[in-house]
C-alpha cells in the first residue's frame, strides 16, 4: 500500500512574476522574473538544482516545444529538464514532477516552473487552437466560456434554479475576487466591481458575461522543493510541506455515458477525495482553511465549492451569497484574486496558487494576510466540463 506524498517534501522557495498584459516581457523575461524571486527565497545556488520540470500550456503562442526554453532562459547547468503539458493543470503537473523526484530520492533539490505568454495573439481571450485532429472533425468550435457556460445550464437544470438567482451568485463570486485582487500588487486586475455591473455585463457565452470570465494573462511562477531534512540543514524554519498531490483525468465517461448530467465536475470530486485521504483530512469543511480554486469562470468556482465538499451539493448559490468564501468568510477562496483577478497564465496558474498558500502560511501575504491559515487547497481544472484534468495540491505547516 502506497503511503502517499504527505510531509515527504517541503517548499524551499517560491517566486511569481507580476501577472497581466506584459507587453514588455517575453516568456524568458517572465521565467527569469519568477526564478530570481524563487532562488533568492530558497537561499540556494542555481548549480544546486539537480532537476527541473517545465510547464507551458499552449505552445503555438508561447515558448515552443521541449524543455529547452527553460534551460536556456535560466542557463540551467545541463541538468535533466522535463517539459509537461496538461492544459490548465500544467503548473501543478510541473510541481508534481519536482516533488515526486525529491520524494523518490532521485535528487535533493528540484525546480518546477510554469509560464504562459498569452497576449501575443492580437485579440482578447484564449488563443484559438486545434483540439487535435480527431476532435477538430466534429467538436463544436467552442470557446472556453462556451465550454463552461454549459456547466451553468447543466447545474441550473439539475437544481431547478431560476436564471436570476444563479447569475447573482455568479456575480458575487466575481465581486469577491475583484475585492481581493485590489490588495495584491502582482494581480492583473486590481479594481473593485459591483454585483450590478457583473450581472448586467454583456454575455460572452450565455449565461457567462464579461465579469464571469477570468483574466487572460502573461506570467510565470516557480517553486524549489527539497526534503524536510535538507531544508532544516539549510536553516529554514516554518516549513511548508506538501500534504497531497492528486490528479484525475476524464476517461470519456462524462462526455459519452449518460451517468453524467453536466451539473458537476466528476474529476474534481474524485481528485479531491483522494487528496483528502492522502492528507489525512476527514472533515474538509473544518480542516481546509483557505482555497485557491480554478475559477476560470465564476460558475466553475461555485460548482467546485460543492465538488470539494466545502459547500453542500445544490446549495452553492446560498453558500456563496452567504459569503462563506469571501475574505472574511468561513473558508476564504481566492484571497489573492484568483484566476479572475490575479490572472490566468495557463502553465503558471497551479504554481501561482501554491505560491499564495505558501505566502499565507509564512505570514508574508501583506495586506491580504489571513489571520490563522492552516491548510491550503489548490485546485486546477484543465479542459472542458465534459472532458478535463483536475489537479489538487494541499499544502500546510510541516510538523
Amino acid at each position, binding site marked *: 500500500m502506497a503511503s502517499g506524498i504527505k510531509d515527504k517534501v517541503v517548499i524551499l522557495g517560491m517566486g511569481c512574476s507580476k501577472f497581466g498584459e506584459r507587453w514588455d516581457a517575453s516568456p524568458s523575461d517572465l521565467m527569469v522574473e519568477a526564478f530570481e524571486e524563487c532562488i533568492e527565497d530558497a537561499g540556494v545556488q542555481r548549480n544546486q538544482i539537480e532537476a527541473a520540470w517545465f510547464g507551458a500550456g499552449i505552445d503555438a503562442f508561447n515558448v515552443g516545444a521541449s524543455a529547452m526554453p527553460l534551460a536556456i532562459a535560466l542557463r540551467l547547468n545541463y541538468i535533466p529538464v522535463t517539459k509537461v503539458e496538461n492544459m490548465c493543470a500544467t503548473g501543478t503537473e510541473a510541481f508534481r514532477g519536482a516533488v515526486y523526484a525529491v520524494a523518490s530520492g532521485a535528487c535533493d533539490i528540484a525546480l518546477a516552473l510554469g509560464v504562459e505568454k498569452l497576449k501575443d495573439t492580437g485579440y482578447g481571450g484564449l488563443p484559438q487552437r486545434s483540439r487535435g485532429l*480527431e476532435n477538430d472533425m466534429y467538436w463544436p*468550435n467552442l*470557446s472556453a466560456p462556451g465550454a463552461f457556460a454549459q456547466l451553468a*445550464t447543466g447545474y441550473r437544470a439539475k437544481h431547478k434554479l431560476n436564471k436570476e438567482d444563479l447569475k447573482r451568485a455568479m456575480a458575487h463570486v466575481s465581486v469577491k475576487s475583484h475585492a481581493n485582487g485590489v490588495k495584491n500588487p502582482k494581480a492583473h486586475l486590481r479594481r473593485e466591481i459591483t454585483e450590478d455591473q457583473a450581472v448586467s455585463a454583456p454575455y460572452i457565452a450565455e449565461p457567462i458575461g464579461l465579469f464571469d470570465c477570468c483574466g487572460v494573462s502573461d506570467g510565470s511562477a516557480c517553486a524549489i522543493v527539497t526534503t524536510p531534512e535538507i531544508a532544516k540543514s539549510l536553516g529554514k524554519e516554518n516549513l511548508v510541506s506538501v500534504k497531497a498531490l492528486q490528479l484525475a483525468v476524464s476517461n470519456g465517461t462524462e462526455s459519452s455515458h449518460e451517468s453524467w448530467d453536466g451539473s458537476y465536475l466528476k474529476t474534481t470530486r474524485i481528485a479531491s477525495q483522494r487528496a483528502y485521504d492522502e492528507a489525512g483530512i476527514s472533515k474538509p469543511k473544518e480542516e481546509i482553511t483557505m482555497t485557491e480554486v480554478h475559477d476560470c469562470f465564476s460558475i466553475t468556482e461555485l460548482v467546485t465549492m460543492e465538488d470539494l465538499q466545502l459547500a453542500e451539493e445544490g446549495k452553492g448559490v446560498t453558500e456563496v451569497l452567504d459569503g462563506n468564501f469571501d475574505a472574511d468568510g468561513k473558508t476564504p477562496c481566492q484571497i489573492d484574486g484568483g484566476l479572475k483577478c490575479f490572472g490566468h497564465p495557463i502553465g503558471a496558474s497551479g504554481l501561482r496558487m501554491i505560491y499564495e498558500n505558501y505566502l499565507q502560511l509564512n505570514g508574508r501575504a501583506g495586506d491580504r494576510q489571513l489571520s490563522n491559515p492552516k491548510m491550503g487547497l489548490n485546485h486546477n481544472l484543465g479542459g472542458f466540463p465534459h472532458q478535463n484534468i483536475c489537479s489538487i495540491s494541499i499544502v500546510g505547516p510541516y510538523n
Partner: protein
Amino acid sequence: MIGISAYGVYIPRARLNKKAVADANAWFDAGLKSLGKGERAICNWDEDVITMAVEAASECLSSNQDVKLSSLYLASTTFPFLDRQNSVVVSEALNIDNQIRTMDIGASQRAATSALISLLESKAEGDSLLVASEHRRSKAGSRAEMLWGDAAASVLIGSENVIAECVGIETLAVDFVDHYRGEESSFDYDWEERWIRDEGFMKTVPAVVKKLLQSASLSTEDINHFILPTDQSRTPGVLAKKLGIDVTALVDNQISTVGVAGAAQPILLLAKALEDSNPGDHILMIGFGQGCDAILLKATDAITNYKPALNVSGALARRREENNYNKFLGFNNLIERDIGKRGEADKQTYLSGYNRRKDFLTSFLGGKCRECGTVQIPKEKYCVNPDCNALNSQDDYSFADKQGSVVTWTADRLTFDWSPPAYFGMVQFDGGGKIMMDFTEVEEGGIESGSKVSVHFRIRQFDPARGFRKYFWKAVIEEKN
C-alpha cells in the same frame, strides 16, 4: 407499371423578406421595387446542395420502409464539389448500402427532368432515388436575387406502391442560350426575358407537348396539373392558354414564397402537384433548358392513402422570417465580411484521418455494446460504460434517425461562427447515447435544457484556402406541438 412511389421536399426555414432586398437595392434599380413582395427561401450558412439533398431524400425514404435502392441520382447546377461525386456524399449521409449506382447530373435547368427520364426508362431492378437540389448564387441587386430560392426535392422511382405512373416521355434538344454560366464565372449571364419567352418557351414547349399527348392519345384538356418551371411570372399562363390547358391546372412557381429553385424546381413542383392530385389526374411536367423535357404522369388509386411526413405545404409552413438582407449577402459570400482573427484559424481537413472516421462523421453511426447494451457515440475501441469497458464489442448504431433532448447548452459569442452566437451543447439521445454537438436553426430564447431535438446533416466548416468544406450532424430544436 413504373412511376413515382414517394416524394420528399426540403425548403430552408429561413425566408428572406423581399422588401428588405428591394429597399437595399432600389437606389440602383428602381424596377426591383415591383418584385419586392413576399419572401424567398434562403440557405442558412451551413446549408448547401448536399445538405438540402440529404433532407429531401430522407423525407422521401421515411414514408417507405421496404425500399431496395439500386440507384441514387443527384441533379443540380450548383454542386459544392466539381470533382468529388456529390451524390455519394448524400448516399453515405443517408447510410445507404454502398452497392448502389450513383450519379451527379447538372449543367442544365432540365438536369432533374432528364435524370427522371433516364430512371423511368431504366430497366434496372429495385427502386431509384432522384434528388434535385439547388443553391444558386446571384449578384447583389439582381432580379435573380428576387426571383430565385433555395430548395431540394426528391422522388422515388419504382414499380411497387406507385402513386403516379409514367404515361409518356418526350425530349427536344436545342442549344437555345437563354442564359449560361461558364467555368470561369460564378454567376449566370442571361438574355432578354421577352425573347426567351417568345423564341424559347413558346416555340419549344408546344412542339414537345403536342408530340407527347399525341403518342399518349390524350388532349390538353386532360391535363390536371401543368408544371412549367420558370422565373417568368406570366409565361406559364400564356403558354397554357396557347396549348389549351386550363389555367387552373397551372402549378404555381411559388416565386413569392420559395423562389424558383433552379434544377430542383420541376421536382419540387411535382411534389406539390402530387400533394394536390386525385386518382386519375394527369400531371404534365416540363424541364426547360437547351431544349425541353416533357413527362406525363397519371395519379393512381394509391395516391389517396399516401401521406408523407412533410409535404410542400408543410415545408412552406415551417419557416422563420429573415429581414436582414446583409445576412443573406454574408452567407452567400457576396460581400467580404470582417470575420475577426478567430475566423482566420486554419481549417484544413486531414483527408486520411477524415476517411477513418467517415462512418461517424457522414453516416452518424455510433456503437451499441454487445456485452452490456450501452449505446454510445462516437464509437471507440473500449465500451464507455464504466462497468463494462469491453474491447471491440460494439455493433454499428445509427443516430441520424434518433431524437434526443438538450442536457446543456450555450450561445457562444466569443468563438468564430458564420452566424453568431454559436449554439452548442450536450445532447442525450432517446434510447441512449450522448454527445456534445452544434445546434442550428436556433431562435433566440428557443432553447432550454430538456428541449427535444432531431439531428441534421449540415456544413460544419469551410476551408476557403483549399476549397473544401466539412460536414457533420447538428441538432435542431423540434417545434412544440
